[in-house]
């Protein structure tokens, strides 16, 4: 029942968007002919926007993009749960960009957090969708919303398709529907005769889809909650998985770009004489902010790019890193206040009455740096364009290619390809815009654009730079007051500006992972300060919480230490949310917590609730002769329902490692307007030798189904900082930690 309540609430929030976009939420209206973007070929049937049945196979549409998080697998499993097909019988297809695949969960998040609620409700009542809703409600993969958004929708689609198939067989064979069963892609008649769905494809094309089929009870589930072999695992265990960078189109040329290394700066002049004389080089063409180099081989394009001399213009942001920090330091002012979403008790009085502890924290810019450099194939013809690329934002790509080429969006086809990682990087589409600009200058020829690692990292719109300031007091061995101010530029404003959109209202990401933490400190205030835009920035795995989870927990740790309390016991005492409490209790039990240790071995603990998921971690470190070694991490997270426990464990381990690796070893800094890190030598993240044991427990006590892609990241850095404090007495308030100590 709890889930129904959630749906009702969300339906209310996104109600008119649902109508405007043609998407009904909750009990999902799975088929109305004008809404379904799929068209059936001869002899095949399209049952809902998610199920295509042909004589030669069953295709399930999995519109949320797969960047390695197993999105295709999880989406296919949700459809299969009701459709009664085996996962090795189906082919996943990300489908076309279409309003049918709007991410209503992300739209709901946007409505809740990004826009003053009254305004949204007013706009919705008027049927006028705000620009933010328009943007955020599109076919976007992000915010750990794939499972929350699709958990019911896809099962409804599977159920409708199954009952439609049964209705056809019932009529054709003269058997009551109740006497038919389905299994492994077949309808089974009472006499044991089996009819494969694929044999019914031609007849199914003409039948009305059965609507409003009740979903199965969890006790009947065959897939959800069970360990499965991910549908892409065989290909990815044999090197046979194709990614965007492996895609080939007949007649294509290989291209790369040479962009102003100072992100966003223009190009004054260039000389490509030498490059044009090099073997295999076909063209050097100007594009916005740089040059496209076209050749017959990627390496020849890379090499030619290095032979071009260019006079670049200065970027629009401060060229030196110190100026970025100075901008943040100056942003803690009433004029720059963006939000104060939490103000409990009487913070000012509490601070006036106690000994005030103060501290300042910093988190650097960070590149996303998925291992596959970004790439795209674009072909532009007179009246249509075609794009092949790995992306989380297919609808934006469609719109941008349309804008650049003047070709109507309906004539822009986007093929979404498997991504070799993203972490938020593929929420940007500069590479598609660049490929389109090149392809415009050689119409009819497919242009495959691949960036070199250096081009990619130098232009990787990084994670926000951020600072926080703490003032707090303790009393009677307890935390009494916590006043945390957080300053950063707005990620949403920077990111949306590249899609020609504005982000009205406060940016909740400035305080995400801090303002809404489940700790009932008597006097507690969290204030967000919006620094002016600096280097262009973008959503990086867990977004605001990636910096703020560190700030909040580190601040809490300092107060707990001042109070003379145990960091886990005091968190438990303060915890105001029963689900979060159980997560803390889980890591205490898993780790056998008995205090922070000392004498060379130390333990830290942190809990961050982000994307609705409370995630706690205990980390243990030991000082050895080569430095500090991270031995063990115990993690627990509450997600309501785990679709696939194997994939869940893998994603949690990966999130911890992504969080630790960057907290320890990585940053992006600017000098002369150019990022000083352009490859993995200067920006290494974590390697296997530094990777700890990671024990994972997923909890399913809550009634909301939530995603796990991002929540494991924010607690990793502060739990490590706590462990370092316990082991060494060093209180680290700035990332990366390797600036201050050596890791083994």
């Amino acid at each position, binding site marked *: 029942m709890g889930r129904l309540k959630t749906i009702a609430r969300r339906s209310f929030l996104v109600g008119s968007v649902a109508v405007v976009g043609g998407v009904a939420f909750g009990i999902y209206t799975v088929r109305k002919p004008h809404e379904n973007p799929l068209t059936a070929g001869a002899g095949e049937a399209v049952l809902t926007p998610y199920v295509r049945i042909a004589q030669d196979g069953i295709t399930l549409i999995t519109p949320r993009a797969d960047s390695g998080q197993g999105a295709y697998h999880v989406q296919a499993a949700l459809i299969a749960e009701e459709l009664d097909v085996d996962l090795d019988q189906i082919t996943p297809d990300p489908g076309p960009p279409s309003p049918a695949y709007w991410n209503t969960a992300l739209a709901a998040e946007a409505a809740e957090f990004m826009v003053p609620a009254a305004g949204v409700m007013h706009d919705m009542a008027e049927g006028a969708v705000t620009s933010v809703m328009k943007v955020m409600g599109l076919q976007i993969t992000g915010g750990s919303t794939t499972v929350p958004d699709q958990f019911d929708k896809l099962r409804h689609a599977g159920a409708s398709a199954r009952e439609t198939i049964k209705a056809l067989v019932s009529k054709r064979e003269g058997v009551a529907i109740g006497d038919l069963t389905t299994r492994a892609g077949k309808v089974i008649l009472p006499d044991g005769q089996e009819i494969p769905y694929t044999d019914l494809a031609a007849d199914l094309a003409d039948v009305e889809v059965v609507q409003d089929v009740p979903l199965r009870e969890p006790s009947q589930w065959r897939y959800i909650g069970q360990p499965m072999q991910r549908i892409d695992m065989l290909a*990815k*265990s*044999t090197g046979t998985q194709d990614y965007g960078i492996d895609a080939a189109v007949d007649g294509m040329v290989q291209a790369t770009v040479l962009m102003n290394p100072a992100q966003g700066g223009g190009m004054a002049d260039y000389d490509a004489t030498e490059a044009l004389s090099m073997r295999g080089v076909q063209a050097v063409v100007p594009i916005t902010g740089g040059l496209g180099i076209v050749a017959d081989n990627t*390496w020849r394009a890379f090499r030619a790019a290095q032979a071009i001399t260019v006079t670049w213009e200065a970027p629009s942001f401060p060229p030196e890193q110190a100026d970025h920090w100075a901008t943040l330091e100056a942003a803690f002012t009433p004029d720059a206040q963006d939000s104060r979403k939490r103000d409990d008790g009487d913070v000012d009085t509490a601070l006036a009455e106690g000994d005030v502890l103060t501290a300042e924290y910093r988190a650097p810019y960070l590149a996303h740096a998925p291992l596959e450099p970004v790439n795209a194939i674009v072909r532009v013809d007179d009246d249509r364009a075609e794009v092949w690329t790995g992306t989380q934002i297919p609808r934006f790509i469609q719109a941008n290619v349309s804008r650049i080429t003047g070709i109507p969006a309906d004539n822009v086809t986007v093929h979404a390809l498997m991504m070799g990682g993203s972490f938020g990087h593929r929420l940007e589409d500069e590479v598609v815009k660049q490929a389109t600009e090149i392809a415009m200058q050689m119409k009819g020829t497919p242009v495959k654009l691949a960036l070199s690692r250096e081009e990619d990292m130098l232009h990787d719109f990084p994670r926000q730079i951020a600072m926080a300031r703490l003032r707090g007091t303790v009393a009677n061995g307890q935390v009494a007051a916590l006043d945390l101010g957080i300053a950063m530029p707005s990620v949403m404003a920077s990111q949306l500006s590249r899609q020609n959109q504005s982000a009205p209202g406060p940016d909740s990401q400035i305080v995400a992972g801090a303002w809404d933490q489940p700790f009932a400190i008597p006097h507690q205030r969290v204030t967000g300060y919006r620094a002016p835009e600096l280097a262009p920035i973008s959503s990086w795995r867990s977004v605001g919480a990636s910096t703020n989870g560190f700030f909040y927990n580190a601040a809490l740790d300092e107060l707990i230490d001042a109070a003379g309390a145990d960091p886990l016991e005091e968190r438990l005492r303060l915890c105001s949310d029963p689900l979060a409490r159980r997560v803390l209790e889980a890591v205490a039990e898993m780790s056998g917590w008995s205090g922070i240790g000392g004498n060379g071995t130390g333990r830290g603990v942190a809990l961050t609730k982000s994307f609705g998921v409370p995630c706690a971690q205990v980390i243990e470190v030991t000082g050895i002769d080569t430095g500090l070694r991270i031995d063990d991490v115990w993690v627990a997270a509450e997600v309501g329902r785990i679709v696939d426990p*194997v994939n869940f464990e893998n*994603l949690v381990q990966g999130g911890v490692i992504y969080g630790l690796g960057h907290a320890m070893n990585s940053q992006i800094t600017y000098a002369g307007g150019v990022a000083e890190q352009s490859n993995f030598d200067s920006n290494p*993240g974590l390697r*296997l030798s530094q990777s700890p044991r990671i024990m994972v427990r997923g909890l399913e006590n809550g009634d909301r189904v939530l995603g796990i892609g991002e929540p494991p990241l924010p607690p990793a850095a502060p739990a490590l900082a706590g462990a370092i404090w316990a082991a060494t007495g060093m209180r680290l308030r700035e990332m990366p930690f390797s600036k201050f100590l050596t890791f083994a």
Partner: protein
Amino acid sequence: MHLRINGTQHEVDVEDDMPLLWVLRDELGLTGTKYGCGIAQCGACTVHLDGVATRSCQVWAADAVGTEITTIEGLGAPGALTAVQAAWLTEQVAQCGYCQSGQMMQAAALLAENPQPGDPEIDEAMSGNLCRCGTYPRIRAAVQRAARLMQEG
């Protein structure tokens, strides 16, 4: 020039200094070998030259002439998994999977040289291969499983 790759002789017309990686990918369409960094920092392009795990982004095509080149396509296939691939599948190592060709090639070379590596040997052999998704705990488990599979024959 002639290159012997996965037991087959290929004739290619490329510059001497074209990295083997780009000969494989762009000239021969063997795209299982991945480009990640171009400077031997990530290991995604790992192949075997005469059985030795080698970063193909750092090997000139001309220098690979006369060697036995093995790529991920030559290690095994979906219907005929080698021990390393079977272990990778059972442990469900991959997330995005982009680095895993190189990881498996590195692991196969390690196990050929040291059939029962301990954690320090695994650390040393595998730490040149980056995985941005953070599948390291599973990579470690898969290397150990592959070692067991090979012992069992």
